[in-house]
């Protein structure tokens, strides 16, 4: 299987799941600095020009973060990434969908790429402010969901944590956004995991 990623993009959440699963895969960097995501080679993989994407050995490609995370969890039941109950699966999907479609796409994307929202450079600060509002509200909503549990769905890491990992890593290391106490502690905990350390090394983010 091939895993298409860009360092410190949201693909780092899928990267963690692959390392937690521990089966061999090939990492393929899509060089955003050279706009490789808009070139023919990558458009053939994902015409939406986004990472993450995975390509299985039979050539089939899967895109969209929650779909990939859920697929990897289901395909690797021994990893424990799939919750044991239907309720856990639905709650995991609900969280991932909110984290990717709202907190990332409506929040962080405004902060990192304000120019995609307004054609006027002078208005970018307003766009960033709106984006910060979405991220801050996202953490407010997720804080009681996490509560005092070690991971989003309980005692162990599941596919849903792939989302909160990249959102919290961005808050601390990319956007300098304050997090509520439980979520801040969560980041500290997840950074201790050997799989997460390997991801940060591989993506050139180890401090």
């Amino acid at each position, binding site marked *: 299987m091939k895993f298409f990623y860009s360092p410190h993009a949201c693909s780092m959440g899928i990267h963690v799941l692959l390392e937690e699963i521990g089966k061999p895969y090939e990492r393929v960097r899509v060089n955003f600095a050279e706009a490789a995501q808009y070139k023919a080679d990558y458009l053939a993989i994902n015409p*939406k020009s986004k990472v993450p994407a995975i390509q299985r050995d039979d050539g089939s490609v899967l895109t969209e*973060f929650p779909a990939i995370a859920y697929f990897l969890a*289901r395909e690797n039941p021994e990893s424990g990434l799939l919750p044991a109950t239907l309720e856990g699966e*639905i709650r995991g999907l609900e969280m991932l*969908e909110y984290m*990717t*479609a709202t907190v990332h*796409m409506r929040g962080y994307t405004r902060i990192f790429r304000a120019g995609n929202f307004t*054609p006027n450079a002078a*208005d970018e600060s307003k766009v960033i402010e709106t984006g910060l509002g979405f991220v801050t509200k996202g953490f407010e909503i997720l804080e009681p969901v996490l509560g005092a549990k070690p991971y989003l769905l309980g005692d162990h890491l599941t596919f849903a944590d792939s989302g909160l990992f990249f959102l919290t890593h961005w808050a601390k290391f990319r956007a300098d956004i304050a997090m509520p106490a439980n979520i801040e502690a969560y980041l500290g905990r997840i950074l201790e995991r050997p799989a997460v350390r390997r991801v940060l090394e591989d993506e050139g983010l180890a401090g």
Partner: protein
Amino acid sequence: MKLYYAQGACSLGIHLLLNEVGAAFELVKMDMRTGDLKQPAFLAINPKGKVPALVLDDGAVITEWAAIACYIAATHPGHHLIPADPLAAAQTMEAVLTINGTIHIAGFSRILRPAAFAPNPEDKETVRNQGREQFLNGMQLIADLLGDKDYIMGAFSIADAALFYVTLWNNMIAKLDIPASINAHYARMVERPAVRQAMQAEGLA
């Protein structure tokens, strides 16, 4: 169960899925224009202030379109709203998320609410044009998946319910020149009793 919805919003896709499986549910209408979604009574149900929200009989609330659709599919397995094979199931989710993320959020939201993107009113048309481009790109991706099949995954699935609501928005509001196969899909959908019933109940027929 109770489905919190707004007339013709993306909640219509969930509404028709509940009809498809013959679920017993109550409809609770919210009016986006009068700020119903930001009232404390609704925020107590869904702090994100969005529809659809599905309240189960035990009081548990499920939000987010794809999560609700997966819940309906999983609790009504006889209707096969998601294929059993894990890859086909993931591809169904992928189609839903492309419709929600690219066609709805990146595309249609720019067309409908440009001021939520660019603060300067003079930029409205620029934002709308970006939205139209995203909307059409997303529609083309789905048309490629649909091919000459009746439904996106071959048999009717949650992805068709998602495609239906964005196609309705195109017919009513965006009025863009979308692929003929998508319009044919829409015509096929409105022939389904569950879809017609949902449209009537929302006053869209």
